């Protein structure tokens, strides 16, 4: 496709018609919901998260009304417990994190000049999981069955079934399901940023939003799995009586706090950084210049990500840990203020150096920074342990965290809404309503939360459903309540503004005169994402590259056509964005939705102790996943290569480290390994808590050294066979490779038996004491992975026999080898720990 050819308007029209046909959305009352294109799934995702935010906001209003006056009796104590638990849980798990994912699903492909993210069906799966899990958790309050243990669900009140009802299970299982969808989104976004950038967009030209998304998605990968591990232990205690958090049987409630906050503190930055990322896009636009200090932003994002994992104990300053431990976390908590401050100075410097265009989104940006800085400063205060001992669990903390979250997440998102609404709908929102709404929110937030600093310091504990008049905080609480209604009016005004949007005129293209790629979007947008994938040579190509918009629109860049009638995008190399492959993307399908429904049924049915039905759901989920993979992945293309224009030809099939699927497997396994390390942490944590660990006595002696070592040897044999199968297959010895895969699967199954034999033959009784319980958990985790490993080996064997995997097209076997590397590592750690630990072998 020479430059010259694209001069022909007829050719361009034909190309556009082909692209339009290929990217046509599905229709029909049901069919339209099977869409997987990021521009629709992202919008559903955003609207759903926004709705959950409004719902959780109403819960907060009810709480504020109850607290308006001392001794009020609008709601009972029990209802109040459900209100604050659901408010916090929904805002965190159903609004802040999903909203980041939703916005990223919409924006990322646009920012990267890609037609879609690499795994569109995975995004759809994530969305449907989120919707099902979210409705399940949120709906519980209408049945008086909502969780009531606070959003961090501290045992032992929440694990003892006589003190807490179904709500705790709904929290654990419903939100675990949503955590799965968050990890799925993280995989999608990491691979998206690293592999689907347009040619020429080297790491140093990447939009800063993409840097933040990369960093945040990696944080999700390491932060959520410890919580998933904690959830697992928690449910084992609630459903089976395994005493992980029960001090009477050797457990320790503090373990939950560790696992929760290893998730919970990075979580704060997981919801804060994407909002700052929106600023990093808005500030250059309204300063009409490049952002100053690009590497400083990367420093801030990466530095914050690391340090945020060294802060978790600052939520546990009052649990009686040694002061020296508190000091380490206090130190890191102070250090994290450095990168956070740097980002804000970068924005100020950019505004200072530029010519500022005043606008509604910018108003939100400035307002939120003002609020956030107050929250940040009280954060520095509570990071000092002696101050925290005074303020802990009072309204001072409530004030602090709301300043951080409203200034760091909610109001920036409102600004982002005003900024990006024209990108999504082609229409601007009203400046008049937007600014009025801003002032209501700004004044409302300060009026609600500033008095709480004082009511907290005057002794009002958080999470009380009422308070006596003698405490003298009645006036402060009334102010907070009035403020909350003022804030709500602001949010309501935004909703009114959104509701009026369909009747407004379309705005011109790129209405803010921005310089980044996403503003190529046309007000009358097509579903193909971008007309041709551009060559990037600047951070602000619309400003800096000559005739850029015209060249994109006229298909003068790469991949301007879809002659084979397939949805495609370009895969590039990680550092330098050299084109390495054209991948075929998933088309609309009901499979993601059906898989999400099946997986959801597993979690929901388990909540109601319907184990056989849950097992049926699990089998259904597995069947769907296999069906989805078999029909939709690692397809052998009709040609080796494809021309993408300008004389460039790239392969249509890659396997191993250069393919998107391999990266997805690797990243997923990183998350899996992190969850596993959470369980292993549990074992060693209990060891530090007991003088005699492992203990001895009936039901507690085991699992011996023999069976764990046997299970380890068999797992390693299975691993070796998988690696050998990969190598033999690549050398053309398909028969031998198939044989090894078959025997490898048998070995994986044998490893299950050997693994279980250890604790079974020695009679370890998991409900007796925490030692047998944690040993059983590690073994079950490992053998479940053996089971999945066997399924993968058999799947690959079937692919080979069916001719869907060949020596040349070997993505399947390369991907499962990654799994088996992690499998081997899991087995080594598990069996070395339980079998070789001093005293465990007896």
């Amino acid at each position, binding site marked *: 496709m020479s430059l010259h050819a694209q001069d022909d308007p007829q050719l361009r029209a034909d190309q556009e018609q082909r692209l339009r046909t290929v990217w046509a959305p599905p229709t029909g009352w049901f069919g339209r919901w099977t869409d997987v294109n990021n521009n629709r799934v992202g919008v559903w995702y955003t609207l759903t998260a926004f709705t959950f935010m409004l719902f959780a906001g109403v819960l907060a209003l009810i709480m504020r009304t109850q607290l308006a006056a001392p001794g009020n009796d609008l709601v009972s104590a029990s209802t109040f417990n459900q209100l604050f638990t659901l408010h916090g849980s929904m805002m965190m798990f159903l609004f802040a994190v999903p909203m980041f994912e939703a916005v990223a699903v919409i924006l990322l492909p646009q920012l990267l000049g890609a037609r879609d993210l690499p795994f569109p069906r995975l995004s759809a799966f994530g969305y449907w999981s989120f919707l099902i899990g979210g409705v399940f958790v949120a709906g519980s309050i209408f049945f008086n069955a909502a969780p009531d243990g606070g959003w961090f669900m501290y045992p032992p009140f929440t694990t003892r079934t006589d003190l807490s009802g179904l709500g705790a299970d709904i929290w654990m299982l419903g939100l675990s399901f949503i955590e799965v969808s968050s990890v799925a989104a993280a995989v999608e976004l990491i691979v998206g940023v690293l592999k689907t950038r347009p040619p020429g967009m080297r790491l*140093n030209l990447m939009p800063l939003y993409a840097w933040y998304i990369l960093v945040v998605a990696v944080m999700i990968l390491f932060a959520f799995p410890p919580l998933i591990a904690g959830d697992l232990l928690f449910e084992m205690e609630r459903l089976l009586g395994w005493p992980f958090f029960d001090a009477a049987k050797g457990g320790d409630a503090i373990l939950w706090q560790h696992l929760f906050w290893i998730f919970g503190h990075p979580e704060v930055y997981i919801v804060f950084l994407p909002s700052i990322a929106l600023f990093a896009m808005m500030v250059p636009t309204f300063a009409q210049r490049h952002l100053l200090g690009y590497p400083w932003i990367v420093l801030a994002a990466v*530095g914050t990500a690391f340090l945020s994992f060294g802060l978790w104990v600052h939520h546990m300053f009052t649990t009686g840990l040694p*002061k*020296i431990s508190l000091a*380490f976390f206090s*130190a890191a908590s102070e*250090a994290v203020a450095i990168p956070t401050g740097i980002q804000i100075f970068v924005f100020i410097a950019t505004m200072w150096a530029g010519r500022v265009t005043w606008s509604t989104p910018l108003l939100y940006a400035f307002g939120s920074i003002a609020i956030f800085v107050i929250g940040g400063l009280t954060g520095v205060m509570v990071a000092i342990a002696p101050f925290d001992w005074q303020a802990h669990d009072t309204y001072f903390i409530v004030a602090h965290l709301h300043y951080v979250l409203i200034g760091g997440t909610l109001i920036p998102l409102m600004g982002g809404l005003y900024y990006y609404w024209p990108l999504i709908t082609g229409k601007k929102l009203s400046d008049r309503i937007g600014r009025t709404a801003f002032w209501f929110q700004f004044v409302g937030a300060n009026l609600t939360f500033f008095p709480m600093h004082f009511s907290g310091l005057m002794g009002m504990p958080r999470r009380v459903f009422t308070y006596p008049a003698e405490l003298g905080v009645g006036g402060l609480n009334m102010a907070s309540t009035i403020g909350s209604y003022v804030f709500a009016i602001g949010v309501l005004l935004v909703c009114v503004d959104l509701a009026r949007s369909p009747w407004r005129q379309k705005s011109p293209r790129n209405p803010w005169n921005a310089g980044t790629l996403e503003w190529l979007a046309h007000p009358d947008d097509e579903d193909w994402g971008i007309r041709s994938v551009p060559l990037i040579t600047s951070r602000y190509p619309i400003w800096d590259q000559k005739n850029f918009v015209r060249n994109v629109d006229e298909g003068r860049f790469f991949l301007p056509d879809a002659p084979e009638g397939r949805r495609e995008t370009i895969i590039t190399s990680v*550092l330098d964005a050299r084109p390495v492959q054209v991948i075929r993307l998933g088309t609309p399908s009901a499979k993601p939705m059906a898989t999400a429904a099946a997986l959801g049924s597993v979690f929901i049915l388990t909540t109601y102790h319907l184990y056989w039905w849950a097992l049926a759901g699990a089998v259904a989920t597995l069947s769907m996943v296999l069906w989805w993979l078999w029909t939709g992945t690692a397809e052998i293309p009709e040609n080796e290569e494809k021309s993408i224009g300008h004389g460039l030809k790239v392969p249509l099939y890659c396997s191993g480290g250069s393919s998107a699927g391999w990266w997805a497997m690797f990243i997923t396994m990183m998350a899996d390994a992190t969850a596993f390390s959470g369980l292993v942490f549990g074992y060693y944590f209990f060891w530090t808590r007991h003088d005699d660990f492992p203990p001895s006595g009936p039901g507690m002696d085991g699992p011996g050294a023999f069976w764990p070592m046997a299970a380890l040897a068999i797992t390693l044999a299975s691993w070796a066979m998988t690696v050998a199968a990969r190598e033999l297959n690549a050398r053309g010895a398909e028969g031998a490779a198939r044989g090894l895969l078959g025997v490898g699967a048998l070995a994986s199954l044998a490893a299950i038996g050997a693994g279980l034999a250890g604790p079974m033959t020695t009679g370890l009784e998991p409900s007796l004491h925490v030692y047998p319980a944690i040993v059983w958990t590690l073994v079950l985790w490992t053998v479940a992975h053996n089971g999945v490993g066997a399924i993968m080996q058999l799947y690959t064997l079937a692919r080979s026999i069916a001719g869907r995997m060949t020596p040349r097209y070997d993505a399947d076997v390369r991907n499962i080898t990654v799994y088996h590397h992690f499998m081997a590592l899991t087995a080594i750690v598990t069996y070395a720990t339980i079998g070789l630990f001093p005293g465990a072998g007896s």
Partner: protein
Amino acid sequence: MKNESPHGDRPGGLRARILALRVTLWTLIVPPTVWAVHFLFCYLWVSVSCAKLGQFPRFTTAFVIGTGVALAIIVAAGAIAWVQSRTPGDPPPHDEGTDIDRLRFIAKSTLLLAGLSFVAVVFTAAPALMLTDCR
């Protein structure tokens, strides 16, 4: 270093060898990873010793050595990044899509992260070296 001309590197010399080192996303995260390892080393050793033995680790020199090693690695990573971030060639402001600008960007970011990690390691080391008991 300021006076060296763009072409004045002696082949095989230290500076030439530094400039030939490959930089990637993995090298970018070396300094903060060192912080994380040092942090875990201090925290775990102290808390395990306090929990299991009921006393602060006797061999406190280990903290000095551990901190020294961590800081040395961070300084080395920073020094390499410093040299690489001044790779001569393209004109300022170094935000183009060229090989040199990409190298300079990752090097500069690594250098900044080395600075932050240095401070963070000192912060972590301070309590380990000063508060020597378990209460």
